[in-house]
């Protein structure tokens, strides 16, 4: 506990809720003078107050400034969160997205007034198709899981067009939770496929589960253990042999951009997380964008809307069931997709270019393998390398120390690093999944490596108390998640 009078610690200032700073009638916004209308509200004017607090502009500015200072971002420091691709977010994207000609466009303006916006969507779509080798892309999905939904619905529509939607979707045990959740949303039964001792899909086990009931196999590649599925061509062949489609979860595309095209691996469909691979900011949990590339067999079933070239320039096809959208599965999202995210992603792609994108993937893989090489003697490496853009350790190195993966993560926080992904994937015990991305310099990695080595030594020396009490230097120490879940307080309420 802080021993200052206020509880503040210099730059870290305690900040009450907005509701605790209320002065009724105060506002941070002045409205232009106007004559209130004779109301035409059908007699349904709100009765009674809402309860929103009143703050002035300087109070609001301080509020959010202070809150921001209690957050760790990629701008703050090293953020090796596995499977999340926390790379630098160039501010050029922010500047471009705020051009009035992009940011101030209404989605229902006549197409003649938004030709540049439609061209931008088309241009980004072109890059995504070129980088994956697949001939079509559905641009509307709002994030990765939404792209999965788009992909599986497209697959289902393709099966239905052949007369049988099929019943089962296969996913590896190491899959992201979104994969089985998405398959269930599309009405499929989920069957897990085990991994082999090398951390890859057990091909024989997969083949044993493949039959005419299987609609699709969903695979993350590189997989969530950070490994390339080296039998992927055999997997694709086996999947296609029973008439199923091969879905790739594109969360880990950052390892492969410009070095491997999905089409060359036999993949039919993959979502692309623009907020990971293509450097758009994650914003504390979104917005993302999940454009989904499709094979020629799946393309006719893509959701609306999409952009086409017409006699008067670019046009939007917004209605399913007619024209080029005759077989479309329908609509998955209001309006035309995450346009603001598209602008940022295209700014990144144009900046990097073909050579830069390839170099970024190469550096991301190099950085991860450097961590592997420099840490494998003190941590426990789950699977032999080389890894791809992330490296997986487990908690065998902590055996009998009384220190857990979680404790190590919290100690890293005190050292100024964001922790790695913990306890995922589920196929190893106490997972520590590190994804450094190409953003990290060698110096930065060396500092991190030194800290991890020192912490590992301290854990092995038996300093349990230190680890269990970490983090010591954060705005809040370890929080009681049990209390939060047992008696949920999900909103502010006025004291009685």
């Amino acid at each position, binding site marked *: 506990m802080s021993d200052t009078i206020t509880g503040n610690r210099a730059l870290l200032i305690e900040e009450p809720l907005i509701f605790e700073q209320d002065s009724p009638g105060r506002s941070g916004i002045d409205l232009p003078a106007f004559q209130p209308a004779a109301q035409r509200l059908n007699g349904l004017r709100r009765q009674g107050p809402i*309860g929103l607090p009143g703050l002035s502009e300087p109070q609001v500015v301080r509020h959010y400034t202070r809150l921001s200072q209690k957050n760790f971002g990629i701008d703050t420091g090293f953020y090796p969160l596995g499977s999340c691709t926390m790379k630098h977010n160039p501010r050029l994207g922010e500047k471009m997205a705020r051009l009035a000609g992009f940011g101030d466009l209404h989605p229902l303006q006549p197409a003649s007034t938004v030709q540049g916006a439609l061209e931008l969507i088309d241009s980004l779509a072109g890059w995504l198709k070129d980088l994956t080798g697949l001939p079509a892309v559905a641009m509307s999905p709002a994030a990765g899981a939404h792209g999965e939904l788009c992909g599986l619905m497209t697959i289902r529509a393709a099966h239905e067009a052949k007369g049988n939607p099929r019943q089962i979707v296969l996913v590896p045990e190491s899959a992201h939770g979104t994969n089985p959740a998405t398959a269930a949303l599309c009405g499929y039964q989920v069957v897990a496929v085990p991994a082999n001792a090398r951390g890859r899909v057990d091909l024989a086990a997969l083949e044993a589960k493949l039959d005419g009931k299987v609609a699709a196999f969903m695979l993350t590649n590189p997989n969530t253990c950070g490994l390339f599925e080296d039998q992927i061509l055999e997997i694709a062949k086996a999947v296609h042999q029973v008439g199923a489609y091969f879905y790739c979860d594109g969360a880990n595309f950052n390892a492969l951009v410009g070095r491997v095209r999905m089409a060359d691996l036999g993949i039919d469909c993959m979502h692309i997380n623009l907020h990971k691979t293509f450097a758009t900011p994650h914003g504390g949990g979104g917005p993302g964008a999940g454009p989904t590339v499709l094979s020629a067999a799946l393309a006719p079933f893509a959701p609306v809307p999409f952009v086409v070239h017409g006699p008067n320039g670019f046009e939007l096809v917004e209605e399913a069931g007619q024209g080029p959208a005759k077989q479309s599965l329908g609509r998955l999202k209001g309006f035309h997709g995450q346009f603001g995210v598209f602008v940022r992603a295209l700014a990144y792609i144009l900046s990097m270019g073909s050579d830069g994108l390839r170099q970024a993937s190469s550096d991301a893989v190099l950085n991860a393998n450097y961590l592997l090489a420099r840490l494998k003697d003190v941590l426990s490496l789950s699977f032999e390398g080389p890894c791809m853009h992330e490296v997986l350790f487990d908690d065998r190195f902590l055996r009998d120390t009384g220190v857990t993966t979680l404790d190590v993560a919290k100690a890293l926080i005190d050292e100024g690093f964001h922790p790695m992904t913990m306890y995922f994937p589920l196929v190893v015990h106490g997972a520590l999944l590190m994804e450094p991305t190409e953003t990290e310099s060698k110096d930065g990695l060396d500092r991190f490596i030194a800290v991890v080595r020192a912490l590992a030594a301290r854990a092995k020396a038996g300093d349990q108390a230190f680890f269990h009490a970490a983090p010591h230097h954060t705005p809040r120490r370890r929080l009681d998640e049990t209390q939060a879940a047992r008696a949920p307080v999900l909103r502010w309420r006025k004291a009685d």
Partner: protein
Amino acid sequence: MRYLPLTEAERAAMRAAIGVASIDDLFIDVPQAARLDRPLPLPGHRSELEVERILSALAAKNLPAGRAACFLGGGFYRHHIPAALDQLLLRGEFLTSYTPYQPEVSQGTLQALFEFQSQVALITGMEVANASLYDGATATAEAVLMAGRITKRPKIVLSGGLHPHFAKVAATQARYVGLAIEARAPDPTGGENLLGAIDAKTACVVVQNPSVFGAISDLRPLAKACQAAGALLVVVVTEPLALGLIESPGAMGADIVVAEGTSLGVGLNFGGPGLGLFATREKYVRQMPGRLVGETVDVEGQRGWVLTLSTREQHIRREKATSNICTNSGLCALAFSMHLTFLGEAGFVGLAELNHARAVATAERLAAIPGVTVLTDGFFNEFAIRLAKPAHQVVERLAAKGILAGVPGSRLWPAHPELADLLLVAATETVEPADIDALANGLAEALR
């Protein structure tokens, strides 16, 4: 390449530490046939200046709504965003952080989302709200799925006043989980009677208020009928600012309220990103989709915030999760919350009154034009009019003069030719008297 810190010398040193001669040796698990041995034949890297030129040229081909007299609504509403809001939103600690899984280094995002949840609950008149979904349309689909889970009934009734995108997104998703959609025909005048559609198989009735045609309805009779039949009432809002002036869905008896939240703080962005708001009764909280932030204490007893009730979510419950959603609209939720915080109660209600005044003035002016019939009687900041000519032609003609006159019926309901002469007109505080003059004169001329 300005985003890449490694130098050639460092790369070489790192390869040596790893024990490989070439970067290609790290890709040996990739089948030989699938390895690209050189960059794809696409343009190479560019300077910031060059990229700015390319993208600015594309932006220049568009007509920004702010350079026109803009009366577009139809689910997206143009509002003034405080200058300070965007500056705060750009703070890197908000912009460049991940989902707040590590609460000790995410208290800023978590507290802001707790405030967001509280604000959404207050304006919708509901007990709890989540930390956002993708957009209003997908939130509507999630509400439909949730109603199916709670009631274990198969029938979903969609009002003809529901935004067609929202109805279609709900229909696309519902069919895979065995829910049957009964979608009512478009209802421009707000006269539809849904009471007869409710039966023992009905999971929920989905209505929009104000409707997509702008009409404000008293939902209390419908709420009562739903309750009596054991069905849920889902209320959709596309313009949350309306809640500053009209009775909240919660006060009228809604069980679930979903909304498109972009009209506060987020901006137009050609329709995306969106911001899905989702609120419901406390007793349904474990059936809710999406993340939730809850209050707790740390080991020193100090108040703090964490993500909670996560066992509903895909990363734990996998195929049994309430939704597959992971990334949501965090930064948009923050922007929405900031805008409401700047406004406060007085500003929110005042801005709503200003919007209503602009819309009433616009409706009165247009009603006087020969060939124009105002269809909506009670409305907030948007209403429907019937024109003596196909609306899309009129819209195109006015667009060429820098007037974005509204949303023609054929754009949202291409399969309904009877709505081809219909125009949705929205007027927010960004509409000035001179804009109303321009619209009125333009319409009069186009209809002459």
